[in-house]
């Protein structure tokens, strides 16, 4: 958790997900599992035992037809910074098996360091962290399709979305080879972003005013990155987690569904 970033070069990679465009097709989930060697079981009926780094939630406005409306909400890891500089999960890990990078704004997970106490899972309000209850296994032929860039995780440890960090490493390696310091916006994109057929997911550097994510979300640095765009919101803003995933919707009820409100506030 050292604050060793160099001024002017720090990135805050983040996402904007347009919920009005999301059709709930699940391509982002499939792409994520494939890209990151996420294992699966023969029986995945109990979703609270399934590993889904990217998970699409479905909810509705609670009204009857013809006023019924519904929404699909893809939920990756929020890469929280915390309003006070502490991510909910990073600060509780007893063995520094998860860390916040001030260079990229990404919360890492060190699989060989984690000893499986699951305190980080208890701390995460988004349920973005998953435990390997079983040994990872794939059908025999599928092992040939595993990505060589991502290490599979062993039983007994926690794993989560890292914004396809290996892609960032590959992109920076390429840029270094070509004698560049900075990446182009399109050079580092997550698998879910590229897989979304509706173009609902946009990824980039929230610190870079040229990037689309910055232009759309308009993060307010004075208020822990809260969006200035009136149609944008972040999940559970009131908890002070300071996440880097912004959601976009023109529907008020969808925006209101992003946080908890007491009956007297509604």
């Amino acid at each position, binding site marked *: 958790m050292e604050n060793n970033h160099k001024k002017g070069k720090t990135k805050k990679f983040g996402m904007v997900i347009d919920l009005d465009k999301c059709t709930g097709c699940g391509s982002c989930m499939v792409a994520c599992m494939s890209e990151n060697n996420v294992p699966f079981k023969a029986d995945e009926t109990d979703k609270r035992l399934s590993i889904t780094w990217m998970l699409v939630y479905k909810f509705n406005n609670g009204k009857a037809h013809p006023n019924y409306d519904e929404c699909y909400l893809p939920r990756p890891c929020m890469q929280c910074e915390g309003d006070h500089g502490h991510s909910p999960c990073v600060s509780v890990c007893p063995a520094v098996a998860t860390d916040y990078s001030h260079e990229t704004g990404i919360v890492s997970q060190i699989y060989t360091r984690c000893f499986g106490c699951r305190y980080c899972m208890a701390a995460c309000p*988004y349920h973005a962290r998953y435990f390997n*209850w079983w040994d990872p296994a794939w059908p025999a032929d599928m092992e040939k399709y595993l990505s060589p860039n991502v290490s599979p995780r062993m039983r007994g440890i926690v794993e989560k979305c890292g914004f396809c960090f290996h892609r960032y490493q590959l992109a920076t390696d390429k840029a270094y080879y070509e004698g560049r310091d900075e990446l182009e916006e399109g050079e580092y994109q997550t698998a879910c972003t590229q897989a979304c057929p509706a173009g609902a997911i946009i990824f980039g550097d929230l610190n870079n005013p040229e990037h689309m994510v910055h232009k759309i979300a308009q993060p307010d640095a004075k208020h822990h990155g809260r969006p200035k765009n009136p149609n944008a919101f972040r999940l559970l803003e009131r908890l002070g987690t300071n996440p880097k995933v912004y959601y976009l919707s023109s529907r008020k009820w969808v925006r209101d569904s992003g946080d908890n409100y007491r009956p007297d506030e509604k």
Partner: protein
Amino acid sequence: MDLDSALWPKDVQRCSFPKFMIGITVVTLVLIWGVYAALLCWFKGLNQTNMNDYYGFALWIWADLAIIGLGGGAFFTGFLRYLVKKDELKNIINYAVLIGFICYSSAQLILGIDVGQPLRGWFIFWHANVHSMLTEVAFCLSCYFVVLCIEYIPLILENRQLDKEPFFHHLSHNMHGIMAIFAATGAFLSCFHQGSLGGVSGVLFGRPFGFREGIFIWPWTFFLFTWSAAACGPCFTILVTKLTETISKKQLVKPDVIDLLAKISGWMMFTYIIAKTVDTWYWALYTAPSKGFNWAFFYSDNAFYGPWILWLEIVICGYIPAMLLITKKTRQKNATLWTAIILASIGVCVNRWALVLQVMAPPVLPFDTWALYIPSWQEVATTILPIAYGVILIMISYRYLPIFPQERELNPITN
């Protein structure tokens, strides 16, 4: 003359060796069942449990926190005996230490089974994150367990046959002489590990049910856990003492000793439960609403957690035992004393339950649902394992060690 009577403390009566062995065998069978379940978890993994990604903390962590709270009698009685100089408590301190030893060794065993990669357990010391409450728990718990071992060793050396060896006799005598230092160390360490266990849920700012404000880095639950362990731990010590007296059919500790410990415990409970009420009130009026929740939300729309748990913890297992213990008349009456110590022991367990399992249950995302959980038999067996281990250790210690200094005087052998 019994087979092992030469090992008994001097001038006391014990049950026959076959009867003792039958008892040991029965409890050992339960122990083996627990060991089998624990081995399944170690070799097959935590898929043997009913935990899931919503319930990463479950029955074991509750059991862990509960037995550490109940084992708080060791540090607080030691504090009263050696530092506050309540000399009468020398007649129950041995048993408090033994109960503490059982509770803390059990807690460490449970943690060893609970983690997904037990062989990496040492990472918590080697790669320690000073910001984590669990790091503080690990360090203070381990250090305090060493203190409890140091406190328990002289008791073992006082066995009639071991005591004949001059080296052991002098070692035991000298260790007793410096015990105040270890008692003080134990009290210091206990304040921190009891507190940091309270902080485990208190720092979770993403979990509005468990989160609490506090002073500097310590949430209020940090102080409440230490306070409740000091209040309810001695009650559990008295409870186990009374149970031992009932099973052995003899009085082992004089009533004035029990009365003193019960009285102090009662006042600790009374002050603790007021603090707990204020904490709950503040959380309900300010903390939860500031996160967008009405307090009642956490006690409704689910099949298990209703307001009853608040009443049970604060009124039935809080104010009632506190009042029974601070009132001389009820404290000195056997039935009401039993009621008070049982309720107090349940109270600390309910508190730990709420701050482990209930924290995991309510939805935080507005479009999510409650998550309830029922433990698997492997979890239940593994949780019963330390109880069986504790019973065995008490049976052996009571039979062969002079745990109760007043036993001879209270139960003279007449031939």
